[in-house]
C-alpha cells in the first residue's frame, strides 16, 4: 500500500518535507518508522490522517493514509 509521510520541524533536515512510502498490507506505524529509519525517540506527535495515534506504535495503516510526524515541540 502507498503511504504519504510528512515531516516537520528539524526532522525535515534529515528526511525532507515529504516522502511516499510503499509498505506491505497490514503494516503498522512501527513498520513505517523502520522503513524510513526514523528512531521513535526523535518523535513525539504522530498523526494518521490528522488523528493522533496516542503512542500506539502498533497502529495499523491503510492504503493512501497520510502520516504526519513531529519531534517534541512546544509553543504558546
Amino acid at each position, binding site marked *: 500500500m502507498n503511504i504519504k509521510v510528512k515531516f516537520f520541524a528539524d526532522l525535515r533536515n534529515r528526511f525532507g518535507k515529504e516522502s511516499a512510502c510503499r509498505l506491505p498490507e497490514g503494516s503498522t506505524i512501527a513498520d513505517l518508522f523502520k522503513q524510513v529509519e526514523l528512531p521513535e525517540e526523535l518523535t*513525539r506527535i504522530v498523526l494518521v490522517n490528522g488523528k493522533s495515534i496516542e503512542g500506539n506504535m502498533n497502529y495499523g495503516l491503510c492504503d493512501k493514509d497520510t502520516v504526519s510526524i513531529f519531534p517534541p515541540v512546544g509553543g504558546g
Partner: protein
Amino acid sequence: MSSSYTNRLLRVNLSDGSIKIEKINQDWQNKFIGGRGLATKYLVAETDPKIDALSKENKLIFVTGPLTGTPAPTGARYMIVTKSPLTGAVACSNSGGYFGSELKFAGYDMIIFEGAAEKPVYLSIYNDEVALKDASEVWGKGVWETEELLKSAEGDSEAKVAAIGPAGENKVLFSCIVNEKHRAAGRSGVGAVMGSKKLKAVVVRGTKGIGVNNPTQFFEDINRSKEILKDSPVTGKALPAYGTAVLVNVMNEYGGLPAYNFRKAQFENAEKVSGETLADTRLVANKACFACTIACGRVTKLPDEASEQYIVSTSSRNWKNAGEGPEYENTWAMAPLCGVDDIDALIKANWLCNDLGMDPISYGATLACAMELYDTGAIDEKTAGMNLAFGNAEALVKMAYATGYREGFGDYLAEGAYRLSKRFGHPEFFMGVKKQEFPAYDPRSVQGIGLAYATNNRGADHLRGYTIASEIMGIPEKTDPAATEGKAALTKLFQDATGVVDSSGLCVFSTFAIGLPEIVPMINSATGSNYSVDDALKIGERIWNMEHLYNLEAGISGSEDTLPKRILEGKIPEGPTKGMVNRLSEMLPEYYKLRGWDSSATPTEAKLKELDL
C-alpha cells in the same frame, strides 16, 4: 535577611504628581509570592471592581516576581495588573525582555500608578532618583521612536523603556504596553489604561544588585533547572530553532487551527506562514529575554521588495531593518484566521502592532470578524473603506494602522470583535469569551482548552491554563484532546500551577521542561521562604479564587463561563476533526465542584476559609 525581593514599591500618583516609596505588605507577599498574585491583592484591596477601567479610579500596577532579575532561567518576566477596559474583568498581562529585571536592579518589586495626569508624562527611574517628566514630545509617536527619543532625553542608552504607542493613547480596547520595542504585556487592553492616565512610558535604569537568601543552594537549584531545560528537546531544540510558530503545522495537521473566523479548523496554506517557513526564509537569529536559556524570540527581516509593499505611513519606520516576531499566536490571528497567506504582510502587520502598541491576537481576531461581516454582506466596501474579503493581505496591514489611530473603519475595529459584531447586528460572529477574542487553538478539536477558555479569569486566553501542553504535546502526560473526561481536573491544575509560575517571575514556557518541583526550590533559596509544592499550588488556587471573586463583584457572573454557539453547536465542517463541537456541559459542573464553587460559580464559605480569602 538577604532575599531576591527588594521589598519596596513605588507609589506614583499621577493626579497630584506625588511619588512615594513604600514597604511591601509582608503578609500579602507570603500569601501570594509576588508578581501576578501580589499585585492582584493590591488591586483588590485598593480599588472597587465596579469602576470604569478607563477612569482615574483604576490603578495600573507594574510588578515583578522574586525570581525576576535573578539568574534563574527565564527570570525575565514582569506583569501588568489592572482592570481591563476590554473585558471589565481583572487583567494581568505578562512580558519578558529586560524591563522587569532592570526595575528590580533599580530597587523596586512593583510600581502602582494611581489617578491620571492632565498632560502627557513619563516616569523616569534611576535607582533612587524617580521623577515624573513631560512627555509631550513623544505623545503621538510610535513605541519604537518613543524608546529612542526617551533614551536620548535621559542620556542613557542602557535604560529600558516600557511604552504605549498611538493605540494606547487612543484607548484602543486591546492596546498593550511594549518594552524593548517588541516585547509586550499584550492582552486585555492594559495599554488603554496607561493611555487614560496620560502616562506614555516608564524609563528605568538600575545599577543595584539583587541578593539571594542562600547563594550556594540557589545556584545548585538553578543549575539543575538549566540542565533540564538544555536537555529537553522542546526547550533545548524546537523553541530556539523554530520559535513558538512551530505549532502552526502541528495544529493544522491535527485540525485544530481555526481559520476564516472559526468557520474552519484547518488552513489550506498554513505551510506558507509556518514556523518552518519563517525559519527557512525570514529568520536572522533567535533571541532571548533576560536570563533565558531557551531563546524562543525571532529576529526577522523582510526581503527588499517586500519592504516597499503596502506602505502605510511616511513616518520613521524603516521596513528594511530587522524586527522581531511573529510568534505562533500573532501568526495565527493575522494569517489563517483572516485567510491571509502572505508571510511578509504578516511580518509587517506584526511589527506595526508592536510599534502602535496593539495586541496582535485581538487585532487579527477582530479583523477576521470584520471579514466575516463583509463576506456575509453585513458591511460593504463603503462602510469599511476598503475591500475586506478574507485573504486580503493589504487590508491586514492597512487596517492595523487605521485601528491604532482609530481612523475610519479602524475606529470600530479598535473596540474589539465583541462590540464590532454587535454594532453590525451579528453578535454570533464574535469568537471569544468575556468580550476577549480567542487565541489559536480550536476548542472544538481540543476539549480541555475549551474549558480553560470558558473559565479563564481574564476572558478567552490560553496562557492561564495551557492544557494544550498535555492534550497535544504530551507534557507532562498525554491526554486525548477529543475526550472530556479528566479535563476539569487537568484545567484546574494548569490554572493553579500557572498562578505560581506567573507570580515567581519565570516564563511559562519554562514549564515545557521544568515544573513546580524545580521552581519552588528556586523561590525558596532566593527568598528564604519555605514553601512546599503543595503550599505553592494552594497559593495558585488562592490567586485564582481572588481573581474570580473580583470578577463576580465586577458583575461578571458564572453565566459568562461559556463559549460561543459556533463552538458549542456548529460542527467543524471538514478535515480530520470534522463534526466536532466543544462539549463544555460535560466538564463545567465537575470543574465547579473541584473548585469548591456552587452551580452559579460562587465559592463556598468553606472554600474561602480554606484559602484564607
